[in-house]
């Protein structure tokens, strides 16, 4: 009897924990997915940020999102359902498939190419031959330059 009671309590605690966990997960998923969707009332705002008084769309869309999550649909299924109903502009960012991938990749490619180009430019400019100086004046470089810099620094503390 004691063992049965203990088991019932254990199951109850476990069930409650799972329910709470799922609830919390559901809430987190609602927030995450709700921020990946746009409100379609024309306000151009994220679904969960649409705050138009009397907005004709956002309440319904939020309910649909909650229903999808409660049904246990996966994230992609929930998003697909919204795309089918409201069109591709309901997603707040391009997908990482097809042409949408171009949107994501291009900024990084441009940044990396830019870094490579600037690096190459800096090296090329550094390796350019010295300009010819008149009257045998020699530009100060390397250790000499460091020496004079150090002298200036120590004497002015700058």
């Amino acid at each position, binding site marked *: 009897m004691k063992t049965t009671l203990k088991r019932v309590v254990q199951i109850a605690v476990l069930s409650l924990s799972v329910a709470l966990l799922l609830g919390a997960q559901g809430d987190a998923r609602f927030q995450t997915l709700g921020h990946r969707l746009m409100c379609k009332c024309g306000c151009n705002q994220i679904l969960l*940020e649409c705050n138009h008084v009397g907005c004709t769309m956002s309440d319904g869309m939020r309910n649909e999102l909650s229903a999808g999550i409660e049904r246990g649909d996966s994230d992609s299924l929930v998003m697909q359902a919204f795309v089918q109903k409201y069109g591709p502009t309901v997603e707040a960012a391009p997908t990482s498939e097809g*042409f949408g991938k171009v*949107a994501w990749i291009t900024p990084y490619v441009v940044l990396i190419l830019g870094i490579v180009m600037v690096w190459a430019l800096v090296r090329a400019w550094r390796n350019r031959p010295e300009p010819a100086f008149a009257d045998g004046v020699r530009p100060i470089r390397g250790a000499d330059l460091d020496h004079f810099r150090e002298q200036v620094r120590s004497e002015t503390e700058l």
Partner: protein
Amino acid sequence: MAHIGSFALLLALGLSSYCFLAGLASFFLRDDLGERIGESSRRAGIAAFFAVTVGALTLVTAAFSNNFAIEYVREHSNIALPLPYKFAVLWSGQEGSLLFWAWILSTYALVLRLRHRTDIRLFAHASVILAAVQTFFFLIVVFAAPPFAVASGPMVADGNGLNPLLQYPEMVAHPPMLYLGYVGFTVPFAFALGALIMRYPGEKWIHITRRWTMVTWCFLSIGVSLGAHWAYNVLGWGGYWGWDPVENASILPWFTGTAFLHSVMMQEKRGMLKIWNVWLIFSTFLLSILGTFLTRSGVVSSVHAFAQSSIGTWFVIFMAVILTVCLFFFVKNRSHLQSEHKLESLVSRESSFLFNNLLFVALCFTVLWGTLFPVLSDWIQGHKVTVGPPFFNKVAVPSTMLLLMLTALGPLLPWRSASLDAVKRNFLWPSVGALLVAVVLVIGGVRPWQDQSYFYALMTWALATLVTLTVAFEFVRGGRVIASKTGQNMLAAMVQLTRRNTRRYGGYIVHFGIALLLIGVAGAAFNQEKEQEMGNGDHMQIGTYDVVCRSYTQDDNPNYASESAILDVYQNGKQIDTLYPARLVFKASNQPNTRPYLHSTLKEDLYSVYEGQNEQTGKPILKIHVNPLVNWIWIGVIIVILGTVLAMIPNALPVRVAVAAAVEAVPVGAGD
């Protein structure tokens, strides 16, 4: 009244056209005749300012006198509109804002034409280019978007009123500041193109251009920040930057303008990057026009955009003409921009500026790419996609982080070449400080491995600390030298140091402001929000706050009716504030609007929004956000503005320090 306004604008168009054509002719005519025609061109340009001022004043007067016979006034004003907002009528609609643009451009042009003795030939060229741009805008306000069009149909007793979102004190300042920034970039553009056309000898034009760019950049920074502050306090979605196409359009010229303010030093100090600088200025101007085109053409959808109209075509043609002219003179005179590109070391101020410019341009490209991608997608795939905050928040982060890193490192690097020992010496303690902050934050509960946004926030705070400490060390190091030579206390010495080289130390203050601003932005990773139906006496727990709904109240005035929630805020069992989030319904337009209410501290904002009533239950819905560190954004902006103003003040004379060795006396605090 409409006739007076229309005639004034027509006159302004005639005068600016004459200014352009006569100015152009004066370059080809012989000396004395050319001079006389050139002078008449300058005077016509000045007169155009007065003509367009009459036009702008006429429209404002029409708004103040409720002249609803004018279509524009009928659409954007009403009798009950509070007086300060009657001024805002001028820029609240398509036609009026274009007139406002033309007026600001003419004001800038007036200043330039009055200061023509600084360099008569260079200013004459700049004046002609400005006149061309003025003529374009006058053509638009006369033919494509006339603000004085007479209303059709029967006379109405009252107008439709000003957009409720614009009825907020900051909205009286935000658009003028933004326009001063946007329009102001025309002046550096005019100098750069003028100098290229005339193959201007020497570097004086670049000094003039830099000064104008700083003024304009300052206005644009204020304008963008006021817009963000307004969005935060009025729109009620709990944020300050939504990556809306129009917001993006305002930041594009800011990126290239900022890049120019850095790279211009390469030209001034080392005679490098002349071609790059000229194109940065051209791009900045073109981006400000592109922003205007995006806002007004309906190409991209935006909450801020004006009604879709045909004037987009005008802007496309204008941009094409400008680009063609720039390309033509660049190809024709590019030999004039030849510069000796020679670097002595990979680790130098020059290299850091090159990477700095790359990052600003990459950021500009990223934002432009995201803004125009829906249009591109429409062309290629046949349907638009949305490119919203999730995209920008992700792709803009790497460049911003690298930029923050360079902001710390760059100022420590000397021109030409840096000795690694010196870099290590200057960088060691700030790095230790940044590392320490990161460790303290992790111990304090920031878990960068739990979420990518936490990782970025931690990185931002560490790098911002690095920037702050390097700036502080620079002040202390320079101040110590002056203190030791003059016997002043440290604070007075640092003030003295700053006055000796306002540009350098003003720049450091701007960097410090940017660090604070980004500290505030990174706080968004820890935002919390909760929405709940709340009747009298209901509680909402969020963060460390307990929000209790005391009651609801209603109010009514000639402009709007309002309904407010009264919320008591408790923390640790003690009442700390009362919030009054409201919902307003503006009578003239019958448009509802929310007014958030904030409990604001340096640590975080408790941001409340009254969202209206649940139609089924009849219960009011309240949304509460806890937004950490937002106030640091506004403090950062103020410091950026102060630093910029400081950098524009001329230097005081340097202190001459006598030294015993053979090295000549060195001015303390001089040089960049």
